[in-house]
């Protein structure tokens, strides 16, 4: 009964997003049928596909901010780590000559596992030490600064072990689905659906499971959560495990679709994901979905109409305006925590 209560009130985000998706598909189809609208519709479709990657990374950001109030700068690095490790495994195989080049699926799995492991290492050495409080205004920056330290460590370890050149992953799926005037990349469509699926699963996890309830209670107040018997030190690693998983999946999907990997691939996606998170409102998973798709759209349409650098100005100005004018995000909506402004 309690699980279906939001549906009764007619405000369940899943229902809303299904409705929005349906309306969007209809609009794109209509646009594609209009004379001269096909190129624009194609741009919108590719923007949404790109947005799917941003959504996954943006949710990783928003999860750590929502639960722990921690802007984790290693998230883009984990994305990069997945891609580079997967490439290394596929090209060279396991370290120390234990095997030859691995099958692409195993390599991607290895990349995701390394990403999760790296995320847990970050938790061990940054967040667990936040307890040492000295109580001034820059205190909340401590884990942020450690995560910047880890960013340097991971990025340069990758440079040492795998080199600084941009590489190309051996497998790139090309399977296009021609739908009237539109070309849909099936792998891209599949990854959009997969990343959205993971995000929906995460949202269910947060609202309907015991772990999710513990996470939300920590988001509200870590001290009260501890008093009420939530084992904060055991629950917090779950946040990092999930964000590592999300980055790993995003990295793997990016590699499969675009096949370019480089030690610097995380920066572009990371900054776009931060923009997506802010547009959607910090700590809001549904906002991150909307924001990610919106940033993907703004990027492809901005490049289409104004060119690359001007598109950057558009995205970041919108972001700055959003932070200052609507810090709760463009859509408001449900948060993991109460949003610590």
């Amino acid at each position, binding site marked *: 009964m309690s699980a279906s209560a939001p549906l009764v009130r007619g405000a369940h985000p899943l229902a809303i997003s299904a409705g929005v998706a349906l309306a969007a598909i209809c609009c794109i189809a209509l646009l594609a049928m209009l004379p001269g609208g096909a190129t624009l519709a194609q741009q919108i479709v590719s923007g949404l596909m790109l947005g799917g990657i941003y959504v996954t990374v943006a949710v990783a950001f928003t999860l750590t901010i929502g639960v722990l109030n921690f802007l984790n700068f290693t998230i883009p690095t984990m994305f990069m780590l997945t891609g580079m490790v997967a490439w290394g495994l596929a090209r060279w195989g396991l370290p120390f000559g234990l095997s030859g080049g691995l099958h692409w699926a195993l390599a991607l799995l290895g990349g995701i596992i390394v990403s999760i492991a790296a995320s847990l290492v970050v938790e061990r050495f940054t967040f667990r030490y936040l307890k040492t409080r000295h109580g001034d205004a*820059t205190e*909340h920056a401590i884990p942020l600064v450690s995560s910047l330290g880890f960013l340097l460590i991971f990025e340069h*370890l990758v440079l040492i072990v795998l080199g600084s050149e941009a590489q190309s992953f051996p497998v790139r799926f090309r399977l296009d689905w021609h739908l009237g005037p539109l070309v849909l990349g099936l792998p891209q469509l599949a990854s959009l659906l997969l990343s959205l699926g993971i995000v929906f699963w995460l949202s269910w996890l947060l609202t309907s499971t015991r772990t999710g309830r513990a996470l939300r209670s920590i988001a509200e107040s870590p001290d009260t959560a501890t008093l009420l018997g939530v084992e904060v030190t055991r629950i917090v690693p779950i946040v990092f495990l999930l964000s590592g998983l999300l980055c790993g999946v995003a990295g793997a999907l990016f590699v499969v679709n675009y096949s370019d990997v480089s030690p610097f691939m995380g920066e572009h996606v990371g900054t776009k994901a931060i923009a997506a998170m802010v547009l959607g409102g910090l700590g809001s998973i549904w906002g991150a979905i909307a924001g990610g798709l919106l940033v993907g759209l703004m990027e492809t349409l901005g490049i289409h109409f104004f060119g690359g*650098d001007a598109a950057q100005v558009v995205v970041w100005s919108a972001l*700055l305006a959003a932070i*200052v004018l609507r810090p709760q995000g463009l859509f408001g909506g449900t948060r993991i925590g109460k949003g610590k402004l």
Partner: protein
Amino acid sequence: MSGYWAGILAILAINIIFAYGIFVTAAAGQLNLGGAGFMAIGAYAAAVLGEQLGWSPALTVPAATLVTALVGFAIAFPVLRTRGVYMVLATFAFAHVVTGVILTQPALGGAMGLVVPDYVDLPVLIGAAIATTLLVFWLMATRLGLAMRALHDDELVSTLMGVPARAVQVASFAIGAGLAGLAGGLYAHHFSFVEAQYFSALLSIYVLLFVLIGGTQTAWGPLVGATFFTVVPELLRIGGSWRYVVFGAIIVAMMMFRPEGIVTRTLLARIGFRRRRVADAR
């Protein structure tokens, strides 16, 4: 002095001024992750004034400082509506907007960069760094500096005690932006070339690290932090990327064991610089 050390000293002088720019803001409890944006404004102001109007560095550098301080003053009002993580993100976005605007304006050279006419030599940079250091030490000893430290330690209580929080924060943000602009103007004239790519997000991150690792409690922090971060990587010449790994590990270890930074008030008291004041406090 070899050219190698002269180069490091020049970078060190600019880093110290830049770090004080971020420190003055951080000393009032505000984190500015958009330092590179302010430095870029200063550098491009000096470059454009020098090239288009033919001003000498004696005029362009103060003008660059002033222009950046004014931009900082204007942007402080919307940005200081936010706090914590939001403020970090707002300043971060501001830096991206600045570099994006530079890249799209042909008058500013776009991605090609601008050549800056007059050359400013090392002694001027060192003089400016020393002057900035003395200025910030003096600033922190004034009533404004006291108000900034109070806001840094506890905003609620200092507001209750009658500290005009907003005015002090806007002032510190504008002064900090001006110092970052000064660093940018000197950078432009010393290296005779500016390009948007130099003022990246990574530069903002590095300078914030200088300040936070040095410590935000006293004006010694940025001096120690900038020196530490500029000189240690040079001493750690153990080959390419490894030194950055060691560097990152030092940052993580610092945050674990001494999150308040290298230099703190207690440390200074223990060394003896502030012996009398601490005795008074007791």
